[in-house]
């Protein structure tokens, strides 16, 4: 487990005051923490009843936040969420890829991602991977819209929070999100039809 309380808090308050570099430095820290948490979470539960396991992003965000940020100085929540969004995307993609290989190797446990009501674990993983690739494609065409979609989908951020982090108006964020959402959903139905 990483011990990084002080540096994360400092980086966050720098990020909150607009320091781009601090944001960049935060990402690997948050990512490492989330991944470690996800691993320990799964290991912990594997020893349990041996039935279906669920990777709960909500629990991860919660724990990561509690661990990494000094309770006395919880500034820059929006910036933390923004960084966590990128990290969460990476963790979920890793998880989905790993599931893919494990399946081929014959894994007895069924691990799925919660929050995706109605879908089977296989389609959930495929959706995450597909979304990941589409987001990369979108980033080449419209970087800001892709960033907004990432913060929204993987960070659960509200328009106001995104506006604060990116430094544009709430309306610009709304518009970016609508564009990104339409593009992503359009692409996903397209590939589903083929």
């Amino acid at each position: 487990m990483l011990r990084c309380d002080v540096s994360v808090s400092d980086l966050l308050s720098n990020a909150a005051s607009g320091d781009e570099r601090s944001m960049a430095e935060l990402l690997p820290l948050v990512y490492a923490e989330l991944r470690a948490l996800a691993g320990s979470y799964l290991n912990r539960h594997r020893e349990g009843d041996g039935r279906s396991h669920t990777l709960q992003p909500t629990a991860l965000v919660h724990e990561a936040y509690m661990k990494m940020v000094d309770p006395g100085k919880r500034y820059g929540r929006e910036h933390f969420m923004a960084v966590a969004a990128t990290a969460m995307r990476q963790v979920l993609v890793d998880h989905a890829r790993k599931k893919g290989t494990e399946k081929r190797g014959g894994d007895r446990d069924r691990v799925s991602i919660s929050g995706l009501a109605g879908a089977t674990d296989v389609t959930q993983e495929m959706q995450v991977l597909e979304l990941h690739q589409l987001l990369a494609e979108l980033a080449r065409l419209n970087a800001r819209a892709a960033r907004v979609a990432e913060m929204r989908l993987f960070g659960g951020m509200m328009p106001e929070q995104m506006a604060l982090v990116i430094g544009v108006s709430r309306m610009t964020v709304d518009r970016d999100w609508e564009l990104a959402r339409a593009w992503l959903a359009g692409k996903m139905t397209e590939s589903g039809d083929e």
Partner: protein
Amino acid sequence: MNSSASEGDGTGDAARLERASEIFFAVRGMGLAERDEAISKACGVDVKLRGLVMLLLRGADAPMPIEGLADDIRAAADRVGGEKSADSDGDRIGNYRLISRIGEGGFGVVYDAEQERPVRRRVALKVIKLGMDTRQVVARFEAERQALALMDHANIAKVFDAGATATGRPYFVMELVKGLPATRYCDEQKLGIRERLEIVEIVCDALQHAHQKGVIHRDIKPSNVLVATIDGKVVPKIIDFGIAKATSARLTEKTIFTEFRQMVGTPEYMSPEQAGQSAEDVDTRTDVYAIGVLLYELLTGATPFDSERLRSAAYGELLRIIREEDPPRPSTRISTLAGKIGDVAATRSIQPARLSTLIRGELDWIVMRAMEKDRARRYDSAGALAADIRRYLSGDAVLAAPPSRGYQVRKFVARNQGAVLATGAVGLALLAGAIGFAWQARSAQRERDAATAERNRAVLAEAETAKRADELKKVSEFQSKMLSQVDPVAAGKGLVADVSARFARALADEGVPEADRAKQIELFGSQWKRVNATDAARELIDRTILKPAIEAIDKDFGGQPVVDAALRQAIADRYVDLAMFAEALPLQERALATRRKLLGDDHFDTLTSINNMGILLQWWGKLSEAEPYLRECLERKRRVLGDDHKETVIAIANIGSQMIYLGRAAEAEPYYIEALERSRKLKDEPNRVMIMMLGSMATLLNEQGKYIEAEKLNREGLELNRRAHGSDHKDTLVSIGNIGTVLKAQGKYAEAEPFMREAVEGRRRVLGGEHPDTLVAISEFEILLQAQGKIDEAEPLCREVLEKQLKLFGYESVDTLISVNSLGGLLIAQKKYEEAAKVMAPGEDAARKTLDGTARLHRFLLNLGKARAGMGEFAMAEKILLEARERAAKVRGENHKDTRACEKGLVELYTAWDAAAPGKGMDAKAELWKARLKAAEDVSVPEKK
């Protein structure tokens, strides 16, 4: 084709997406045809661009698979709670202990908090988000504090305090108000237009109070008008007074974007003057404008300017729209809602078609007056707006009306006749007023005014002087005969002609030019079409004839109980004809009791009263209470009058119908056969009883699946009825409806539709829209639409019928329960399980009682079970479905299609249950029923078509 240079070229692709997104945002709100044209125009021959635009449009309507994940993550982040910890020292801010977080929006966060000193009380504490100059905010608040303290109104939430948090954010402390934003409350409670107007009226009065104390709200919008039900009363409360002003900081801001983010007010509710150059230029009429928008949204379900459009417009464009563009009138906006109109109407408990007619005209005028761009042309105060709403609600002419002569004349006519019915619709009030004088005018020319109390007394005075029994008898016969001539249809028709003629004369007298006159008369005529003359006449007959008649009987016939009973019986019969059963019952009971006592049980008049008592209860849907009377009546008539007497034949037929209503067709058969045979021997011309029996027999044959014979009898009956009474008679309409029913039963839906439509329209015309027989016709028509998959058309009809039946009968009536089940089925078909259960659950007890032993009960239970299963209440669904299956097997047989339908329901239940809770053996249960279904299908003979 694109040049190869742009193929795979990143910049080209990015530019194309940019262009596509512009087109996407521009065309998104358009109708399909218009949209296609705009896309073609914008894309020209650029196939790739067009493809991309189409992809975006498709994507906008497609689900986004992992959006639920985002909500979860957000919830987690909220639980960790950044804001609270940052601003508060532990769980405190200043003197306040934070209890829980109750809301969040663009402005900041609201907490439920407790104040400890100087008084202990619960408050709402609102922390404003970063980015404001806290000192200025607090200073501005202090400046207005005095004025705020002066406000004392039950519909305004008090503002207690303001301050700064540890991190320097401004906060406000207010009265804690429980309630929902006005729009949400109204939709969730499905409030009708009248109730919505009443809420706005109260809000206006509260605003008027604030304005008189010198406080302007500046940010009236649904989320600042919270509504709750307190002690059964709807109580709206305006919150956030003083906050918009304190936090308005636009003059000190520099960039447009910052300015925009802090723009006071929500763009949809922002007045033109707020969108203007100078923020100081705001007065009480700004709040009047916002109330206009609120009213607009409460009426139409949409804001005047499309929210999406406002949000996607550039800042300057946004201000221009608010300042310059004229929004569509509410009724116009409704007509452009297209697919959403069904929902909008349903949440207002009204039919889609009625919604826009109701809003068109006066409500349009009121809203548009409140929302005038130039505030000098708005209502000059919130109180003036409230007063105009009150005028509308009480049927008076509204001030917002354009100065049209037609409108003023109509309102004048309505106001001066003074007769306003309790229904509330302006059109109906207008009609009733006119009927008041027209009726008086007509009855003055005819003998019918003898029905009024005065004449009653005069006739009676004569009779009492004579003191002779036979004369009294004549009096009562005369009275009864007169009462039986009271005919709402004729009255309604006569009135329309009468009033139209008067209107035309009035226009001529006023010297209106010929050309104008024709136009106004046409408009007037179209107004009249909006109301059902027959319904209005019914109300009027009750008020002007029957009620006074009862009073006269009470007063004058105390010493003549036999006459008294005869008159009461006559009035009770009129009420039953008018479907006013509750009014009929006490009269009927007293007439019967008196006759039994004085004339004996076997007297002809007593037999009539016994029969009519049974019919009253039967038509009222109280079948189990009706049956003893009907059986007693038949038994006595057979004995006293003989089997071939017309009255006996009718009594035989009545028992048959009772069995049909109870869903026991097999038991009805011997009665119907006997009644039909005996009726053929009657000497009447036309032989009304025989014609009626043809229809009844056909209904029975239809129930038994003998469609061809049924159709033949119905067509014969229709022909005879047409010859005897013409097309617009209730008996003829029964035949027409029956033919529709038979065709429908054979699956010939398209052929059935014109018959059923005619039956509905004819009955609306002849019996009125509220009459139980009309409702049955609508109900059958609606079920036909359902069978054809026209769910959208069926649902409003079904809701209309159910609402009226509930009013007439309550739940304990077969007709009501059929409608409840039908609506339940409609909702289940749309997967709205929770709503279906909500509709059906209140009828469950009544269904078990009223439908016991009939096929209708297991059909009811099947739908209820499906609804419960759809909601995931599996255990309850299982219990209900097993019961439904058992009852179906008992009533209909093991291999009947009803039984199989219940079994299918069980298979679906267990399959869903297994998916939700695997490993509990539900899959095995599903298999078991599947096997049972399969076995049943193998043995059962395909049904005859």
